[in-house]
């Protein structure tokens, strides 16, 4: 029992402190981006497009699922990651961080699908969507890094 407690503590300290903070900050950026698109959607406005043809992307049939804009799902995803990170700091329970790390896999897969749709099907780009793909890729890379650390720790503790 004592061992388990110690190993939990050890694992916690081995995840660098900056990691969940960076995770939270990136999730906050992703949330602002996706929330902006959701607000624009519901106020029937097509946001200004600096480059590409974002109106084609944002009004394509892939931009919503059952009438709910994809950006709203995105907002909820980033919000979930953010809440889990804060929960981790708040409750000091590693499980929340772990859930957040695994959630980023779903974010990465969704982003990959949306980028593929932009490149191969819609043939147009939208900077807001690319920013979101960037934030979810960053979350994913950090998560893989963190999960590898966990794995290494398990490996060393088995020895």
């Amino acid at each position, binding site marked *: 029992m004592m061992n388990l407690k110690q190993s939990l503590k050890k694992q916690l300290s081995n995840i660098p402190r900056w990691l969940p903070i960076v995770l939270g900050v990136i999730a*906050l950026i992703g*949330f*602002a981006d996706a*929330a*902006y698109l959701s*607000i*624009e*959607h519901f*106020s*029937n*406005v*097509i946001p*200004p497009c600096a480059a590409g043809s974002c*109106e084609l992307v*944002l*009004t*394509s*049939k892939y*931009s*919503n699922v059952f*009438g709910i*804009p994809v950006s709203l799902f995105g907002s909820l995803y980033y*919000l979930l990651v*953010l*809440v889990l990170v*804060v929960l981790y*700091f*708040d409750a000091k329970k590693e499980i929340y961080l772990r859930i957040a790390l695994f959630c980023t896999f779903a974010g990465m897969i969704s982003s990959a699908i949306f980028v593929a749709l932009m490149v191969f099907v819609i043939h147009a780009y939208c900077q807001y969507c690319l920013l979101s793909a960037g934030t979810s890729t960053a979350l994913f890379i950090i998560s893989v890094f963190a999960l590898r650390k966990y794995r290494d720790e398990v490996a060393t503790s088995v020895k």
Partner: protein
Amino acid sequence: MNNQSSTVSRIFTWIGLIVVLGLIVWGLIAANNKAVQGRPKLTLLDPVTSADWITGSTTAPVTVVEYSDLQCPACQSYHNLVLKKLIAEEGSKFRFVYRHFPLPQHMNAYTAALAAEAAGKQGKFWEMHDKLFETQKDWEKLATSTAAETFAGYAKTLGLDAAKFKSDESDPALFAKVASSSESGNKTGVDSTPTFFVNGTSIDNPNSYDEFKAVIEKAAQ
């Protein structure tokens, strides 16, 4: 003591998160409203012709042109809360022109526009236009084929010839009419609905019946 202070800091953590998220959303909405209100004025490119749907006075000095989408909730609010009353009570002071601008994110907007046009073929464009706005909540989420059936039902209620309505709905000429109205909006620079033009210049959308009435009275001077 220690427990108490940790409870306090936990409460502050969550309040802090909610405040930060609230500020972000509030800021985005404010930025969005500002962008919508502060848009540069557009100039109506296509003059009103007899091919347009016109109601109100034909001789009044004020012309209001609306680019609208039958599935857009904001257009519906304007119709139900402002325009219907305005046309009924102040209709002698302006002529009102409706142009289709179905947004692609509204999957039944195009079908609804065709239904209104098909009713127009039997002289009941405005009746169908009113009906569709009044019932928007009932059909906005339907699959397009089911929505079309619902519209056929409305046609029957309005006393239209059902067979003619159905064949008109799939008339390529009506498709072309809606498409050209939409294209006219694009060309003019319309990027949201509803967009109103008063005597050829776009206006910031009025917030109430009285504001809209004041805009028309000012234009009449």
